């Protein structure tokens, strides 16, 4: 084990080499970081929150843009978007342009991530409705984003099951309730076993899933969450209307068979019951059409316009915006790309409809177009998309986008998850807890009136 002393210099040399081998790359890394800041020429760095499949749709769009304008795009599909963005912010070097949740606007503005957008200077801006543009205003009245894609949640259901049971499309909460009951007890798949359920529900509080799923019922009952009041907000969640919506949701959870067992812990990625023919309904976004069609057959997947609650049919809307990183200044190139992305041509490419042909991947990164010259139903050649577009246009509401709503969403989701986890839970007390949580968060963010 012990070697002659003559080998010691060699050992020392090896140790030194090893140290250099470790330090070398680290030093190289840090010099990279330092030089990454000033990229005012070269390709335009664009981040999208996408996985590999969706990234292909973007790549096709950017390739078309480069061909038209000669401006090169360095497209970075990022899954852990916000974590990565924080890291880049720490280096004082944000991407030129980012496409991400419209709901991130308030938080990004508060962190200084976004450069203002000059709406009037963008060609084609008039093709986007004023209502959509208004959603990109910060609390200070400045435009910080460009609408890119919108969507509304709708009830996706098993048409074959419903027809087998001889039931009509539900138009009220009561009929929705009856349909869930029929799916659970009427053996709609005809296999003679009680193995079907009314609805699939992402019920976990993680990432606010249950709040995004369930908030339409609060709105349909006439409840509201926060009310804007100048630059501030007040909590208006603790109302009899909100309570009524929450009671309806809990009735679903607590009526055996209405909700797939275990849903209280499920995120959207855990939901397989609809695809596997165990659940008959799923309140979710239209981006699932393709995968559901593949799983249970396109002819069996229908979209139900939101059944009416006591006060209406309001559903939950989300979307994505185009944002400009505040540390970069390539105004003209960014404007050129934006103009392409909101043009009818760009939007249609982003919708990536199978009806338009081409070689796919048929993953729509533009769900409902913000460009008013396009009709979703026509581009997709699919009535279900038109139902979705109508739901968005007629009666939809979003979470507030001009503030950092994520902590509020978490408070709401935690409260709702607690309510639905236990059929004996004290709803009024838990609702008071949500209200108190909202007030605390308003104070934390300096938004309280």
């Amino acid at each position, binding site marked *: 084990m012990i070697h002659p002393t003559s080998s010691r210099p060699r050992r020392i040399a090896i140790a030194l080499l090893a140290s250099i081998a470790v330090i070398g790359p680290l030093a190289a890394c840090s010099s990279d970081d330092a030089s990454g800041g000033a990229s005012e020429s070269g390709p335009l760095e664009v981040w999208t929150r996408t996985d590999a499949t969706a990234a292909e749709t973007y790549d096709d769009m950017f390739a078309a843009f480069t061909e038209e304008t000669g401006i090169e795009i360095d497209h970075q599909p990022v899954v852990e978007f916000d974590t990565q963005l924080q890291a880049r912010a720490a280096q004082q070097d944000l991407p030129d342009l980012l496409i991400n949740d419209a709901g991130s606007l308030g938080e990004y503005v508060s962190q200084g991530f976004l450069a203002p957008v000059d709406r009037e200077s963008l060609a084609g801006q008039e093709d986007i409705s004023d209502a959509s543009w208004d959603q990109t205003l910060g609390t200070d009245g400045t435009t910080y984003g460009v609408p890119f894609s919108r969507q509304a949640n709708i009830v996706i259901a098993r048409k074959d099951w419903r027809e087998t049971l001889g039931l009509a499309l539900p138009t009220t909460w009561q009929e929705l309730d009856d349909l869930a009951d029929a799916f659970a007890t009427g053996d709609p798949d005809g296999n003679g076993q009680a193995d079907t359920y009314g609805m699939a529900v992402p019920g976990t509080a993680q990432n606010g899933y249950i709040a995004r799923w369930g908030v339409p019922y609060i709105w349909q009952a006439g409840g509201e969450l926060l009310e804007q009041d100048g630059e501030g907000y007040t909590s208006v969640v603790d109302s009899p209307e909100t309570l009524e919506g929450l009671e309806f949701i809990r009735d679903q959870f607590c009526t055996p068979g209405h909700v797939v067992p*275990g849903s209280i812990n499920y995120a959207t990625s855990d939901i397989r019951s609809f695809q596997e023919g165990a659940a008959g309904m799923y309140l979710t976004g239209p981006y699932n059409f393709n995968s559901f069609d593949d799983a249970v057959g396109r002819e069996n997947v229908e979209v139900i316009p939101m059944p009416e609650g006591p006060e209406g049919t309001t559903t939950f809307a989300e979307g994505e915006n185009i944002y400009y990183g505040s540390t970069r200044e390539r105004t003209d190139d960014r404007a050129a790309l934006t103009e392409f992305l909101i043009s009818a041509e760009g939007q249609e490419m982003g919708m990536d409809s199978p009806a338009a042909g081409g070689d796919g991947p048929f993953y729509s990164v533009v769900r409902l177009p913000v460009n008013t010259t396009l009709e979703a139903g026509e581009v997709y050649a699919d009535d279900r998309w038109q139902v979705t577009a109508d739901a968005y246009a007629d009666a939809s509401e979003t979470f507030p986008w001009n503030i950092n709503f994520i902590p509020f969403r978490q408070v709401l989701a935690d409260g709702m998850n607690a309510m639905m986890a236990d059929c004996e*839970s004290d709803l009024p007390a838990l609702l008071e807890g949500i209200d108190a949580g909202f007030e605390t968060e308003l104070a934390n963010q300096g938004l309280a009136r």
Partner: protein
Amino acid sequence: MTSASTPMEAHRVTDAPPRARFRARSVAPWLFLAVPLLFALVFKFVPLAEGVRMSFFRVQPLLGDEFVGFANYTRVLGDPRFQDAFSHTLLLGFGTTVGAMVVGFFFALLFEGSSRLLRAARTAVFLPVVTAVAVIGEIWRLLYIPSEVGFLNSILGALGIPAQPFLSDPGTALLWVGVVGIWTTAPYNMVIVLAGLAGIDRSLYEAAAVDGARLRHRIMSVVLPGLRASISVILTLAAIRSLRLFTEVFVLTGGGPAGSTEVWMTRTYSIGFASNDLGVASAASMLLLLATVVLTVVVRRFTSSKGAP
């Protein structure tokens, strides 16, 4: 290895001038250590220091951090969700530790020996330890599916027991998370106990047999005292690990339902990465570090005072 070489090398190099000998000998180990130390510095100590710094700031990477004193700590300590998470963490850590120790001990007694069959059995039992916790979580989530078609429920159904809600019931979810924790860590404890068992002098068993001791007496008077060192190791490791429990909970329940399985780390994660409040998350992490250090010291004190080696 370097320290073992010292006496022999000193003997060999008596001709060299004393100062040169001293220098070369004292530099060489540091050079060897340079690589791991550098790694530790870059990936452990620098982030730790940064974490300490961030815990006193409102973290805004672009606009510049804003010093807030102990405000982040006050927010963590005053947050009822963190208080609940802390008690869940203690409960889960304690339950998992005790459960895994008992099961590990039982396994060790069951699988001690050198026959090929026992060796194969030991390997099979050890598998959970080398499986990624995220994978284990996913598998158990499938086993725990609360409808009649779930794996465990279909077994219970065959025995005439009604379907259990498992992770869906806020009253029992923590228990079922604990079962997964025990299943994962017990085999590791088994190996430590097996090593301890091998160190017990066989003649003690013979003496006990001669004295007419039953199995119960042999375990209490021979095996357990002989395993003191092993148990100390198990407890120390458990003290360090149990408080930072994360992956099982995150994968199995995400902290739900109704926050009933939320532990310190899942709460910290959601504050840090869902709400992007890195200052508060850092403060929570520092408190966790402090609690871990205290717990480890207490466990060491407690187990070593019970008897000298």
